[in-house]
Structures are given as structure tokens and as C-alpha cells.
């Protein structure tokens, strides 16, 4: 874990050039050209130049000299952040390639400013063995758009009956640290306890999809005023909150790390706040869509708004924003859940649950939190890069913008405003609930290990 955020304004241009030259000499033929990000604002603070050489941040300072052959990016007025890390992505491969592939999903991630994603386990076959997680990681490596960290299933086949071979996945080449049956809740309390205990030996974490299955049989949307009116079966807040309450107590009892996926209700925020006050080692995430949309969006029966957990009320949206602002909620994670058109072009109760989110995540966080004065850009770096990497125990990602750090960098221009258009997305799927909304910001540059993956919003083809 990196705790220092000091940008080295005192680094001299000469030192930087020397570092660049030596790094350049050391770099092989495959090494990317040095990149100088000129005049951007690291963490949204004072303007500094950032020099990337041979896959690392070589220098940060004012008026840095560009070594010969350097690609200079004018970042005047732009925010410079560590590359974003998503702890909750559905890449759908293997088995769901009609909706997304590792290739298309990681391109989408890069367009969203991400340099790492954690690929959820609910694929076909399920990522519950070392073989599947290694395959997913390999696909990510060869696609090369961002780092792909597979999430392992907690239980065999996500069936909630017996533990998968968690240790084998942890010790595989994929080095899995996050385990989740996401899409399904590990609802058996004994199994959840055992999972929490088991992952302690390799510093893993259980990421729980908190949903009591009995309280949500046939559930279609948040249970409240709107569900009553629309005659859709309700998904009560208590079905999420009761599982979170149980799990934080279990985590306390066995002294384990718990991560709560896509927390969505005001009550859940209260429970996490209470647990943290008691010193329980719990982290929590909120999705961009739960920061903006509400159950009122369901009124047109457009299944693009169908998601699990469901869109909640305006009060819940306020509560998760408050929780994210005060640190109760640790991170924003997309729960990017692509679906083919046919899975959404249906009656509400027959449509699939989930929304795409990678390509709109930072815009949503800017819109709902930064532009509202609730988060600084330094906070954004914390909730979308540093903390998610820490929870996933990824020491290569989410590092401070400082000399020596890996060159995973995002240059975000917060000024442009554009109409969200899913047809322009790199994701294979179009189920974005933000279609037609005016969203702020443009991904000017995303750099993965020194190599640009995105420029001016478009992926850089190799």
C-alpha cells in the first residue's frame, strides 16, 4: 500500500531527462516511446508535467524537458489520475460472447479510463477452477487493453452448496484474491462463515452479492411506491440489509475481510457505517447507476433500467452519495453487465438484469459527486483507483502518481459535455441506461504500462 501522495515538484528537468535516457536505453524494442503529459493537473491540483518512460512514471514537475522521440500530450486544464481500477466487471467470456468478450470488454474499460478490471466469475463455465481463471487472465494479457484480474467463484458452479477450490485459484498464475458468487448471494450462513475464514490464509476477500434469496423470489424492482403502482414484484431493501448485517457480524466474529458489492440502500450505508465504527474490516462499493437513477426510471417498463440490486428511491441515492462522500462507501465499481439486445427487448419480468457502465463510470462520478462538490479529484483517485486495487491486493495498480510508480495513467478533460450514445460504445452490448443523457468529461488519454490505450476518447489500435 502506498501512503505518500507527494508529487515531486522538486524533481529537476535534468534528472528527469537523465532518467528517461537511462530508462530508454534499458528498454527493448517493444518499449513504448516516452510520453510527456504537459500541463495537466495531477489529482485536479496544481498543474504539473508528468513524464512516462519505459512503463513507469519517470518524473513529475514543472517545465520538464521532453527527451528525444517523446510523445508530448497537451493536457492543459485536464485532470491527471492514476488509471482507474474496476473491482466489479462482467466480461462474459467464456460463454457469453454474444454480450461481451475479454477483448471488447477491456476495450470498453480502456475507453472508460480503466487500466484494470476484475472479471466476475459468473461465466459459462463458471470461474471456479484455476483453469478458468488462468484462461481469463491470459485472454486479458493478450488483449492488452487493461489488466484483467479474474474473480474466483466462492462456491462450485455458484450453486451456494460447497466451497470451490479457492486456494488453487489464489495460487494459480491468475493470483486470485477476490472471490464472489456475484449474481447470487452466498446465503447459507455457515458456508459464508467458512469462506470468510478460508481466504484468510492467502489474504483474500469475499465480495458478497447481498440478496436474501427467499425475500426476493421473483423480485423485479425495488419494493415501494412505484412497484405497488406498476404491479411488479418487489425487491425489498431489507433483503440486502439483512445479509449485510449478518455478514459484517460474521466477518467480525472470524476476523476476516468482507467486501460488499453494489450496496444500494440507505439502510445498508448505515450498517456499514456502524460496522466500521466497530472496527470490522469491511469495505463497500456503490455503482455509478445507483448514484443517479431511481425506481422512478422503471415507469416506462424499459428493461434497460432493470438491474440487480434494483434502482432504489431518491432517498437511497442521497444516502449512497453521502456514504461515498464520507468514506463509509470505499469505492465506486461499475457492475458493468452487458446483455445482447434480445435479452432486454422483452417484457420487464422476462428481461435480463444489468447495465453496461465501464464507458460512463467516471462521467457519472464527475456528474453526481465532483460537480456537486461532494468529492475532490483526489477522492476520485481514491475511490476509483487506489482503494479498489488495495481491496483486490493488486500492487501494480492504483499506485500514487509519483516517480517510480507504474505508468498506468488517465488524463481526463472534465470540460466537454456530450450526449451518451451506446451505439458509439466499444462494448458489444448497448444496454446503457444513460443513453441520451448529457454527460461531462472526455478521456483524453489512458496509458497502460506506458503505452497509450485511448486517445481523445478512442482506442489506439495497434
Amino acid at each position: 500500500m502506498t501512503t505518500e501522495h507527494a508529487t515531486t515538484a522538486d524533481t529537476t528537468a535534468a534528472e528527469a531527462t537523465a532518467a528517461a535516457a537511462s530508462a530508454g536505453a534499458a528498454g527493448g524494442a517493444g518499449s513504448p516511446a516516452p510520453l510527456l503529459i504537459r500541463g495537466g493537473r495531477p489529482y485536479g491540483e496544481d498543474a504539473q508535467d508528468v513524464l512516462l518512460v519505459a512503463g513507469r512514471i519517470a518524473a513529475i514537475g514543472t517545465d520538464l524537458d521532453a527527451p528525444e522521440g517523446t510523445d508530448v500530450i497537451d493536457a492543459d486544464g485536464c485532470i491527471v489520475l492514476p488509471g482507474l481500477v474496476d473491482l466489479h466487471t462482467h466480461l462474459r467470456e467464456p460463454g457469453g460472447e454474444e454480450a461481451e468478450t475479454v477483448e471488447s470488454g477491456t476495450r470498453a474499460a480502456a475507453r472508460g479510463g480503466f487500466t484494470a478490471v476484475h472479471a466476475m466469475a459468473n461465466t459459462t463455465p463458471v470461474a471456479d477452477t484455476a483453469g478458468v481463471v488462468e484462461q481469463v487472465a491470459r485472454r486479458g494479457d493478450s488483449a492488452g487493453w487493461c489488466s484483467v484480474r479474474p474473480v474466483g467463484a466462492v462456491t462450485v458452479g455458484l450453486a451456494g452448496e460447497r466451497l470451490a477450490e479457492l486456494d488453487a485459484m489464489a495460487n494459480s498464475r491468475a493470483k486470485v484474491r477476490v472471490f464472489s458468487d456475484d449474481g447470487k448471494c452466498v446465503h447459507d450462513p455457515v458456508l459464508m462463515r467458512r469462506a470468510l475464514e478460508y481466504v484468510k490464509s492467502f489474504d483474500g476477500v469475499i465480495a458478497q452479492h447481498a440478496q436474501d434469496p427467499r425475500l426476493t423470489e421473483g423480485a423485479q424492482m425495488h419494493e415501494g411506491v412505484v412497484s405497488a403502482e406498476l404491479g411488479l414484484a418487489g425487491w425489498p431493501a431489507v433483503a440486502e440489509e439483512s445479509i449485510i448485517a449478518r455478514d459484517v457480524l460474521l466477518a467480525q466474529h472470524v476476523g476476516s475481510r468482507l467486501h460488499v458489492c453494489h450496496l444500494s440502500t440507505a439502510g445498508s450505508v448505515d450498517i456499514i457505517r456502524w460496522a466500521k465504527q466497530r472496527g470490522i474490516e469491511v469495505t463497500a462499493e456503490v455503482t455509478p447507476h445507483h448514484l443517479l437513477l431511481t425506481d422512478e426510471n422503471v415507469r416506462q417498463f424499459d428493461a434497460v433500467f432493470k438491474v440487480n440490486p434494483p434502482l432504489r428511491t431518491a432517498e437511497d441515492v442521497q444516502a449512497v452519495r453521502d456514504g461515498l462522500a464520507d468514506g463509509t462507501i470505499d469505492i465506486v465499481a461499475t457492475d458493468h453487465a452487458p446483455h445482447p439486445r434480445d435479452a432486454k427487448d422483452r417484457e420487464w419480468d422476462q428481461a435480463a438484469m444489468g447495465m453496461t457502465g465501464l464507458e460512463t463510470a467516471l462521467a457519472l462520478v464527475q456528474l453526481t459527486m465532483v460537480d456537486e462538490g461532494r468529492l475532490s479529484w483526489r477522492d476520485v483517485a481514491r475511490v476509483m483507483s487506489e482503494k479498489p486495487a488495495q481491496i483486490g491486493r493488486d500492487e501494480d495498480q492504483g499506485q500514487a502518481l509519483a516517480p517510480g510508480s507504474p505508468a498506468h495513467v488517465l488524463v481526463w478533460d472534465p470540460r466537454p459535455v456530450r450526449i451518451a450514445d451506446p451505439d458509439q460504445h466499444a462494448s458489444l452490448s448497448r444496454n446503457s441506461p444513460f443513453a441520451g443523457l448529457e454527460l461531462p468529461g472526455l478521456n483524453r488519454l489512458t496509458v497502460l504500462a506506458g503505452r497509450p490505450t485511448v486517445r481523445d476518447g478512442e482506442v489506439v489500435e495497434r
Partner: protein
Amino acid sequence: MKHFITIADLSRDEALEVLATAEHMAQTQSRSIRKLPTLVGTTVVNLFFEDSTRTRISFEAAAKRLSADVINFSAKGSSLSKGESLKDTALTLQAMGADAVVVRSGSSGAAHLLAHAGWIEQPIINAGDGAHEHPTQAMLDAFTMRRHLRPGDPTADLAGMHVVIVGDILHSRVARSNVLLLTLLGARVTLVAPPALVPVGASAWPCEISYDLDQALATGPDAVMMLRVQSERMVGGGFFPTVGEYSRRYGLSTARAATLPEHTLVMHPGPMNRGLEIAGAVADSPRSVIVEQVASGVFVRMAVLFHLLATDAREAPRDH
């Protein structure tokens, strides 16, 4: 009116206009030749994803009495039972040249989706969507009530009337449409059900909610509408301990019916579970208008088809 999807889309004037047209239709139906030429040459498709003999026949009779051609497209023995999607069905109907589609579905919002997804351009009539709405049922209920409670005044609303609706509110599209329509027309509505069968969030509805049938009946309502207990929708189960207990607490028994004022109507949208939510003797008693509701259904559906399809729908229907 382009579609007839939900009561929430209607203004008070529009609702009264449909009821007025239904009165005209009713008058034409007492003649020796009941068939009107109004919709000659148009084709109405009854698209029924859910079994419903009663509603389908009612729509079919209504369309035929207006001289429309009717095509019935039901789940059993058709492509619908082979998993054809609503979208593909809609595209097919569009290609075949249907002039209007009457749709019944177990999915809340199906009619809305059909009307607004861009798959089909024709008028859509909601014949019941999941637990959402059943707007023509509410229209026929209001029509029936008005005839009895405001006799001789075919332009009246239901101001001052008190209607008690009893039973499985949670799963009832009939209750939702009736709450909206009856209150739109000025009536006061009380819903009576065991708490588990009242939707969480129903407190926002423009009606009162009671768990005590005897108390509600003691107010001397103008109409009591009993709902069918929809056991097939009871996902998760356990809404009430036994049928016997439900019937004792919420059934309209002969003894309970005897406490009602003489003018109080007893209604039921059908099909009834005799002996469960309503005693057979009450269903067959003089205050019961259950059979009349069926007749009203045809008039109201003729009126809805007329408003959506007739080229001269802006004028009163002509006598031919």
C-alpha cells in the same frame, strides 16, 4: 386516445366520454339487429398470452358487433407457446395488417411495451397486464355502478359513492385500475385485505386501506367488489394460513351480506371461487350484479374500440 393502456392516462372527461359511448352502445344492443357497421373492414387481433376465456370472448363479441374481423391469437397451440417473443409477435401482426391489438399478458407493462417499443404502430388495448392494470374491467365496473347508483343519469360521475374492494389487492390489476378510475370519477374507495396482500407502497394510493372487512362493511358502502384469490400467483406462499381462515375473515358470507344496506351492490370481476371469497348465495342474490358486469363489458369494449378505431370517433356513434 391512441391506445388504451392504463387508467392513469385518462382524464375525467375522457373516462366519462367512453362511458357515454358505452351507453350508446348498450342502447343499440337492445334492438333486434345488434350488429353495427362501424368497423367494417378493420381487423382486431386478440393477442392472449394468458388464458382468459371471459375477457377474450368479451372483446371478440364487442369487435364483431361493430363488424370488425377478429383474429384470436392465444398462447395454447400457437407460436406463443413455442417461446416466440412479444417483439416477434408484434412484428408479425404489424406485417399482417392488424388494425388494433388487444393484448393480455402475465407481464406487467406488456401492453405499454407493445404500444411504445416501436415494433407495431397500431392502437393497443390492454386486456390485463400482470398485476398492473386492467382498464376495460374498471370501465365496465364503473359503468355497471353508475347504472344502478345513478339511474337515469348517463352523464353522471360517481361523486359521493363509496366502494369497498376486498381481497388479493397485491396481485390484482383490477384493484389498481379501479382505484384510479373510481377516484377519478369522484368515488371514495376502501381496500380491504389481510396485510400481506396489500402492496408495500400502497399507502400512496388515493384510497383508504383497512384490514377489517366487518368494519368496512359497517360504513354502508354503495358497492362491495370481491376479488378472486389468485393462488397461482402466490410466489413464496404463506400469504394467509389457510383458505378457511381467509374465508372467515375476508369472505363475503351470507351473514355479512345481510348487514349491508339494501342498495349496496355486490360485484366480482370473475372468475369466482364460490365459497372462498364469496358465498354462492351472495353471488346469486338480487344485489349481485356480477352477471350484468359481463354484459357491461361488451358495451364498454365496443366503446373503447370505437374511440380508437372509428374514423368518426370524434362524433357520437350514429344509429344505423
